[in-house]
């Protein structure tokens, strides 16, 4: 039942009054069952658009090209009805803020069962599965089911949305900024739960700007900058020695490293340059960087980096 998620040459542009906002350019990634892929980048780099594209939640003013495949299904070619069905049965989203994603005026039990029924479970199966899942997360369906969301702590709310995402065994789980605004002890708990999710066999895609969470999660990491993937490789290798200058400068900005900001600003998405987008801020810039957009070149550590430094010859 587990299937591989494959994104091939995905480009997304928004038609706006200020012109085309190019949010993603030729992004190709894949996530195998049981694998964790972390999509990391600053705000405006396109990472949330990627999550929304996978879930077909993009607005109407969007131009989208490329392919998204979940197992043998090509998601961009499905009819709206098929898409809704696939999304309900096979995909799950762990939302950014559990407190606002859950309905605040309904008891949690009803919401949990409703989510499970949408995955195609019968009422009895839904309750049984939820009971098991919540028990694994140290919660009791009967106890929390009668509560409202504001009556639970942040950690318990997080576990509720995790259970909601896992019920019915989705093929892919997408977590969008799962730790924004959480304390460091809650970040640890969330990281452990996310690892447990992928250990169950689901493909896990985590969208985050929290580098410390990324380091704890491991797996593979895709670094986005100005709508393109600039580095793709094992997370551990990235934190040891990033191959792209942007990755290196980003890690230097962490307070525990040097706390040094990257000079300049990332380019406007309405006017992306026709050369390396990071060239203007890059300390390693040389002539070629101002002439063309680099491909993803393999570096000695096994990662791919969109940088001419790694181009052969």
């Amino acid at each position, binding site marked *: 039942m587990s299937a591989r998620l494959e994104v091939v040459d995905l480009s997304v542009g928004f038609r706006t009054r200020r012109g085309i906002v190019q949010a993603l350019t030729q992004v190709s990634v894949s996530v195998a069952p049981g694998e964790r892929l972390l999509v990391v*980048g*600053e*705000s*405006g780099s396109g990472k949330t658009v990627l999550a929304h594209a996978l879930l077909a939640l993009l607005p109407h003013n969007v131009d989208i090209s490329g392919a998204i495949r979940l197992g043998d299904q090509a998601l961009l070619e499905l009819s709206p009805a098929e898409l809704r069905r696939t999304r309900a049965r096979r995909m799950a989203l762990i939302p950014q803020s559990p407190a606002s994603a859950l309905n605040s005026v309904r008891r949690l039990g009803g919401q949990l069962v409703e989510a499970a029924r949408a995955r195609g479970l019968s009422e009895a199966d839904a309750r049984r599965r939820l009971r098991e899942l919540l028990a694994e997360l*140290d*919660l*009791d369906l009967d*106890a*929390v089911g009668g*509560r409202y969301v*504001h*009556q*639970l*702590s*942040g*950690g*318990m709310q997080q*576990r509720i949305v995790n259970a909601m995402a896992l019920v019915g065994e989705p093929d892919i789980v997408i977590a969008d900024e799962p730790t*924004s*605004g*959480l*304390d*460091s*002890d809650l970040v640890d*708990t969330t990281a452990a739960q996310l690892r447990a999710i992928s250990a169950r066999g689901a493909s896990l895609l985590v969208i985050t*700007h929290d*580098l410390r969470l990324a380091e704890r999660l491991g797996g593979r990491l895709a670094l986005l900058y100005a709508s393109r993937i600039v580095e793709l490789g094992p997370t551990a290798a990235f934190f040891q020695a990033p191959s792209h200058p942007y990755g290196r*400068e*980003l890690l230097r*900005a*962490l*307070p*525990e490293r040097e*706390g*040094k*900001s*990257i000079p300049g600003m990332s380019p406007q998405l309405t006017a992306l340059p026709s050369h390396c987008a990071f060239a203007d801020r890059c300390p390693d810039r040389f002539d070629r960087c101002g002439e063309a957009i680099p491909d993803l070149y393999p570096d000695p550590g096994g990662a791919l980096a969109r940088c001419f430094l790694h181009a052969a010859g």
Partner: protein
Amino acid sequence: MLRAEAITKTYRAAGGRLAAVDRASLVLERGARLGLAGASGAGKSTLAQVLALLLAPDSGSVTIDGDRVGAWGVRCRRELRHRVQLVFQAPRMAVDPRLRLGDAILEPLAASCLLPAGAGARRALLEGWALRVGLTSDLLERYPHEVSEGQLQRACLARALVVRPRYLICDELSSMLDVSTQAALLETIAAIQAEQALGVLLITHDRVLAGTWCEATIDISALSAASERDDAAATVRERPWNIRRFRSRGTFRSA
């Protein structure tokens, strides 16, 4: 020197009152960078609002450069309130979405009838602050939804600084920014702080950040006597769904 002594602030909660801040004392010197760390729900933001003279404590005193604060909020005289300014956590919620950035920055002066006369003088003042906080002048014409979170937080910083405070309290100002933006903003604050001998209180749950950026860091739980806190927690123990109890004790138990 900004001195707070034995500040206690309680809120009404189901079945009693809940001490958000319990007899906390701290001293912030001009030109110093002090960190205040602690888990969410530990009372950091309540203390920040008391220090910024926005929220009256139940008991305790605040003294600013020798002047003892007698009233909080609008009842406090303006000159005293201007000495301590606060930058809030979420810039999108801290500014009026209908104001252009430039107008938002000057709003505190306008509200206090302190705007310089003449469009030229106002423009010069505005551009001076924009330059200091690292905003380009074209951004001053934009609305909050047209700029990034980091740029908006810079405008909020300028907005706090226009009234020439002596002390600046930053309440989780960078927790929603990415690391490079956070580093850039803190570099800006450090430069202004040195230039104007500002006393900065950086409130954050990121102990690593507090430890590296500040000269000293205090933990909110260490501000008040531990035995008292246990008693306060004990009074809410019978109400298992009390959010504060779960957060402040850091334990999550299924009921």
